[in-house]
């Protein structure tokens, strides 16, 4: 009996030993980093593994070629294509074999930075002499955390107002009625343009694009969802409550959100039968890439464009997009830094735009531009835009105007939970489970608790 007992006793003992040996992270931000020397003159070698970047169009391939040239022949670039898989990335960091460079969304930077999954780029920016003044301010804000820059902004996305000119005209309205500058006009337009014969919604008058555009509506009403230092949630401020009441109220005017969503779900969003082409949607704020989709699949759709505007009538857009960040434990940070720099330089963007322009010209289509996180590159590319006739030229003009008037929310260590908190609130309102004020009060509590906890963890890690 005794040997058997001993054997069984050994199991928990070895388990305990193994457990204590396992799950050793790579250390937080407080862990010492070896001094890496970055310099534009440094000759680079080795392998550079890039995760989350795909080469599916000429913009990507042109830029990749230029970045490879900047690295020199001694560096071999390996791509892990497709959208960045957070789980895959974080486990790789935890296991001590991370990629050298990642291409996440800018709103993920706070989460990664606060947990020590990526390294600050101060040394990289100084060493490689990257001129950060050329990057768009709103984009830089999204990747700044604890006073340091953690990522290099790449693309930029903005929203503009897109509308169906025929439906507007028939209702006796103009694009000014639906650009957001007068909320009562938007509500009235929704009421006048929507069509619901026999209670069945056939045409959406105005889609305020909730939940995702709450930050935009709040900003249009003069409020940010979070304080500038990223520490205090401001979800139940009177302006945000008012913005949600208005944007959700737009759906009420048209028979309620369920009907609008059902019609939205049934639409062929990316195809010829999209809602604008089929006269099923009056107007909505939407990201600029959709203009290219519409121009491609339904060039004859009766479109009208303007910027999205705040309540004072000024153009306004929420900036989002990807960025380049270097994981903690990257084997080749010098090459990663040079690559990130080369990918986002004015000349690189110009070359990529040139390639796109050539491809579009070959197809006999207009070049509608590319939005980057680099203001100077944007100015250069704008000069290359070709005319596609109205209404598309007006759309491109609106896009560039929006691009010059962007805002963003600051990086914070609880990005995901914060976002989920306000989205849950909006959804509870849309699903008829709560009133805007009550929903946002609850979201405020949840979000603030998550922020407090995450900032406290960050403080523990850095002290």
């Amino acid at each position, binding site marked *: 009996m005794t040997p058997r007992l001993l054997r069984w006793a050994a199991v928990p003992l070895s388990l305990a030993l193994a457990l204590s040996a396992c799950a050793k992270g790579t250390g937080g931000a407080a862990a010492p980093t070896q001094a890496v020397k970055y310099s534009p003159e440094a000759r680079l070698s080795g392998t550079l593994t890039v995760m989350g970047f795909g080469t599916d169009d000429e913009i990507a391939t042109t830029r990749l070629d230029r970045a490879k040239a900047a690295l020199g022949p001694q560096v071999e670039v390996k791509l892990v294509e497709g959208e960045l898989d957070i789980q895959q990335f974080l486990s790789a960091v935890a296991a001590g074999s991370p990629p050298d460079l990642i291409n996440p969304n800018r709103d993920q930077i706070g989460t990664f930075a606060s947990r020590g999954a990526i390294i600050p780029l101060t040394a990289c920016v100084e060493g490689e002499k990257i001129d950060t003044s050329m990057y768009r301010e709103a984009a830089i804000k999204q990747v700044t955390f604890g006073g340091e820059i953690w990522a290099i902004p790449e693309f930029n996305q903005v929203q503009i107002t897109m509308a169906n000119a025929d439906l507007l005209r028939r209702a006796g309205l103009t694009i000014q009625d639906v650009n957001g500058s007068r909320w009562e006009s938007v509500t009235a337009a929704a009421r006048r343009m929507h069509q619901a014969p026999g209670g069945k919604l056939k045409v959406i008058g105005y889609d305020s694009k909730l939940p995702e555009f709450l930050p935009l509506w709040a900003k249009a009403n003069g409020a940010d969802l979070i304080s500038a230092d990223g520490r205090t949630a401001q979800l139940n401020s009177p302006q945000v409550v008012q913005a949600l009441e208005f944007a959700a109220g737009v759906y009420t005017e048209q028979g309620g959100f369920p009907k609008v969503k059902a019609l939205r779900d049934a639409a062929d969003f990316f195809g010829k039968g999209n809602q604008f082409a089929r006269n099923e949607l009056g107007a909505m704020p939407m990201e600029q890439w959709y203009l290219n989709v519409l121009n491609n699949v339904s060039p004859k759709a009766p479109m009208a464009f303007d910027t999205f505007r705040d309540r004072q009538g000024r153009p306004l857009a929420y900036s989002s997009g990807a960025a380049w960040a270097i994981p903690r434990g990257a084997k080749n940070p010098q090459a990663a830094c040079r690559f990130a720099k080369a990918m986002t330089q004015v000349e690189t963007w110009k070359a990529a735009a040139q390639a796109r322009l050539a491809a579009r010209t070959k197809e006999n289509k207009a070049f509608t531009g590319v939005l980057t996180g680099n203001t100077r590159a944007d100015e250069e590319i704008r000069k290359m835009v070709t005319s596609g006739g109205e209404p598309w030229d007006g759309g491109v003009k609106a896009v560039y105007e929006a691009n010059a008037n962007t805002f963003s929310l600051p990086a914070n260590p609880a990005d995901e939970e914060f976002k989920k908190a306000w989205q849950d609130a909006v959804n509870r309102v849309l699903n008829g*489970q709560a009133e805007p004020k009550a929903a946002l009060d609850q979201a405020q509590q949840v979000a603030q608790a998550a922020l407090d906890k995450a900032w406290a963890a960050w403080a523990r890690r850095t002290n």
Partner: protein
Amino acid sequence: MRGLTRSGRRAETRAALLFISPWIAGFLIFTFWPVVYSGYLSLTDYDVINDPAFVGLDNYRQMFEDPKAGLAFRNTLIFAAMSVPTQLVVSLGLALLLNAAARATGFFRTAFFLPKMTPPVAVGILLLMLFNGQNGLINTVLGLFGIQGPAWTTDPDWVKPGLVLMHLWTVGASVIIILAALRAVPQELYDSAMVDGAGWWRRTLRITVPMISPTLFFLFIVDSINALQSFTEAYTAFFGAGNTTYSNDAALFYVIYLFQQAFQFLHMGYASAMAWLLFVVIMIITAVQVLLTRRYVYYEGERP
């Protein structure tokens, strides 16, 4: 076996163990170890990157105070209570029909099983289309009968019934299993019952159902566990891609919330604690079901 010496038996055991050693190694590394390890993680604060910090039972305490965990748990129980009986009744009904159809059984058996091949993600998308409140097939058909169908995909009261009905899409596997059991019921029992003048209903209730009760019980347990762990269809339809920001509380199942905590919010410790609670709950429910079988399930070969 009697002729074997002690050492011969040992040699045999060793050979057998050697043969199944790949499975044993796989089980220990990929199942047993992660399970044990998640037990340890459930007592820590762990974000995947940094070392787990031991927090004792904090995660479990937090779980009982977390209204969303409570909501997710209730949602899951309600869904299971609706879905499991529906699944059983429908699959039994279809199997009885198939059993009665003499010649075309083979064809229908395949036809019923085919939808099971649909990837669960596709089923989730299909749900959004079939149950679309405005243009969905279900509401269109209801409309033909003058019934105005509900907003299945947005109305919190109708989200779960929609998921239950959609779940029937994959009922084929259960139908096949029940059909096999039906084929094994001895014809004599029916013959003698018919001689005694028993009708179809009576034969079904008094002979068929008791005779196949072990199979029904097996399905009951498996379906219950599946329902308590359901994730993919609901996640795709109400939380996943294409619906990036719209979601519906009514479809927040326990495993979906667990997934959000683990992979979106990076609270691996908390998610591990949630997984363990679910494990315990499933164990309890299964134990209760097993106890009940002693009363209601008939096993051939046991004492009558």
